[in-house]
C-alpha cells in the first residue's frame, strides 16, 4: 500500500478533496478548522471527495467525511459527491450507511451528450444540473492538474497557510 495523502483544490466554489493511498488521519484537529473555513467561503458550492486513488481509509477519516456532509446539510448545501471506483472502498462506504449522506458515483466523466454514467436514483433535473456543474468543476481541476498549471495542494500545507 502507498502511504496516504489528502490533497485539496478548489474551482469556482467547488472543493475537491482527493485522497490517495492508505489514508489515516491521526491528528485531525486542524482538519476541523479546514472544514470550518471551507464552509465559510462566500462562494462555497459543494464538496467532491475523489477516492479513485484511495486504497484504504481509516475510521477517523470516514468520521470527518461524515462531518462534512452533516455540516453541509445543516447549511442547506447538497450532499457531497464521492467518486469511488474501487469496489472495496465502495463496500466500506455502503456498510457505514454512507449512501444516505453522500452521492456515491463511479465516474466523474461527463459524456458529450450531457448524460452522466451515474448510479444514482431518479432525481429532479434541477439537482442533476447542479451535480453536472460540480463534476465539471472537478474535471476541470483534474485536467489542470495533469497539465501542471495548478496542482492539488497537500492538505497539511493548505492548513498551514490558513494559520
Amino acid at each position, binding site marked *: 500500500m502507498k502511504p496516504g495523502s489528502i490533497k485539496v483544490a478548489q474551482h469556482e466554489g467547488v472543493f475537491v478533496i482527493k485522497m490517495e493511498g492508505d489514508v489515516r488521519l491521526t491528528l485531525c484537529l486542524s482538519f476541523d478548522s479546514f472544514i470550518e473555513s471551507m464552509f465559510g467561503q462566500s462562494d462555497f458550492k459543494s464538496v467532491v471527495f475523489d477516492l479513485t486513488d484511495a486504497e484504504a481509509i481509516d*475510521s*477517523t477519516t470516514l*468520521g470527518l467525511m461524515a462531518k462534512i456532509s452533516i455540516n453541509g446539510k445543516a447549511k442547506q448545501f447538497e450532499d457531497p459527491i464521492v467518486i469511488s471506483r474501487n469496489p472495496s472502498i465502495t463496500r*466500506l462506504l455502503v456498510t*457505514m450507511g454512507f449512501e444516505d449522506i453522500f452521492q456515491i458515483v463511479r465516474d466523474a466523466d461527463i459524456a458529450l451528450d450531457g448524460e452522466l454514467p451515474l448510479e444514482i436514483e431518479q432525481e429532479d433535473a434541477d439537482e442533476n444540473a447542479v451535480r453536472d456543474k460540480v463534476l465539471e468543476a472537478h474535471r476541470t481541476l483534474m485536467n489542470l492538474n495533469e497539465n501542471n498549471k495548478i496542482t492539488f495542494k497537500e492538505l497539511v500545507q493548505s492548513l498551514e497557510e490558513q494559520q
Partner: protein
Amino acid sequence: MSQSGRRLLVIDDDTIVRQSIAAYLEDSGFLVHQEADGHSALTWLMDNPPCLVLTDLRMPGTDGLTLLKAIREWDVELPVIVISGAGAVHDVAEALRHGASDYLVKPIVDMEVLVHSIRRALERHELIIENRQYRLELEKANKELKEYIRVLERDQLAGRRVQSKLLPPPAVSFGGINVDYKIIPSLYLSGDFVDYGFLSNRYLAFYLTDVSGHGAASAFVTVWLKQIVRRFFREQEIFNTKDSFERDTASLLKLINKEVIRSKVGAHMTCFVGVIDTHTHEMRYVVAGHLPLPLLIANGRAEYLEGKGKPLGIFEDAEWEVQSIQLPLQQQFSLVVFSDGVLEVLPPDNLIEKENYLRNILSKQQGSIEDICAALQINSLDAAPDDIAVLKIDNEMLK
C-alpha cells in the same frame, strides 16, 4: 558572528614586530594584550583567559612550543596560532601536532592574512563550544523525554488494568451457549471493547465495539460506554420479553448514539450488537458501521451475516434496522465477531479479498479463539497496527 571586541594575547620577544601586530589587530577591532615571553604570558592568561593566543615559536626562556603544551594542559580548546621564522619547518610540524590552529611565516607581509586566520580560528572554536552546548541540551532533553515516556507507560499500564477489570469474565456459558473473547491492543490501551450479559435467564446479549482512534482517549470512551449500557439494562428492563427481544437492540443503539453525541467526546464508534434467545436459538442483531461482518460457521462452512448501518456518535437522528437469523438448534455452530483491526493484518491488499481470505480461514478452523488467532497469525504479531478484538459464541459441548 561579530568577533570584534574579543581579547587576544600576543606574545613575541621582538618588541617592534609585536607592537605592529598588536596595533593592526586593535585597528581591526580586537582587544589585544601583549607579553614578551612565554612564562609571563602563561601567568597572565591563567587570570585573564583570552579568546585566542598568537605566539612566536622561537623565544628565549619559555619558547612558543613549551607555552603551547602548557596551554593545552590548561585548556584543550583555546585556539593558538603560531608564528615562526622561515625554515623552521620542524617547529611548525611540532606545533600543529600539539594542536595549534594555524601557523604563519615571519615576516608577516600581509596583516589581513593574519586577521583572516584569527577570525577563522575563533569561528571554529565557537562552533565547537556551541556544538557541545547543543549536545548537552539534546542529551538533557532526551533524558527528560525518556522520563516522560516512562511516566506515560506507567499511566497506560494503570489504565489498561482498569480497563481489563471492566471486561467481562472470559470463557463463560449461558443456557448452553459459550462465550469467549480476546483483545489484542495496539498500544497498552485499546479502543476495542466487548461485554455480554444473560438476561431473564433466557436472552444472551452481547456487543463488540471499536472506538475510533487508539490509546487513552478511546479506552476512556469504552469504560464510559459500558456504564451507559449497564445503566440502560438496569433502568429499561430490556430483553425480558419477546417484544423487547425483537425490537430493543435498535433502541439500545439509538440511546448510545444520543449519549455519545451529547457528551461531545469527539469519538465515534462502530459496533455489533446481538441478542440470542437461548431457547430457540433465534438471534436479533444490529450492525453499526462494523466491518468485517460477523462470521457464522456451521457444517464446515463460514458465511458472513448480512447487514449494514451507520456508526455511532456521528448522526443525530440515525436509525438502525434489527436483523434476524436462526442459528442452528440441533447442530454445532459458532459465531465469530472481529473488530476491523484484523483486516490490517491479513495478507491481501483490498477489503473484498481480505473478507474472502478471512472466510476461507474460518471455514477450515473451528477451534478455540486461540486456534483462530494462530491460524490468522495474530498471536505472532509483535505490535498490532490497530487493536484487534475477537468474540466467539458457540454451542459446542464443553470438554
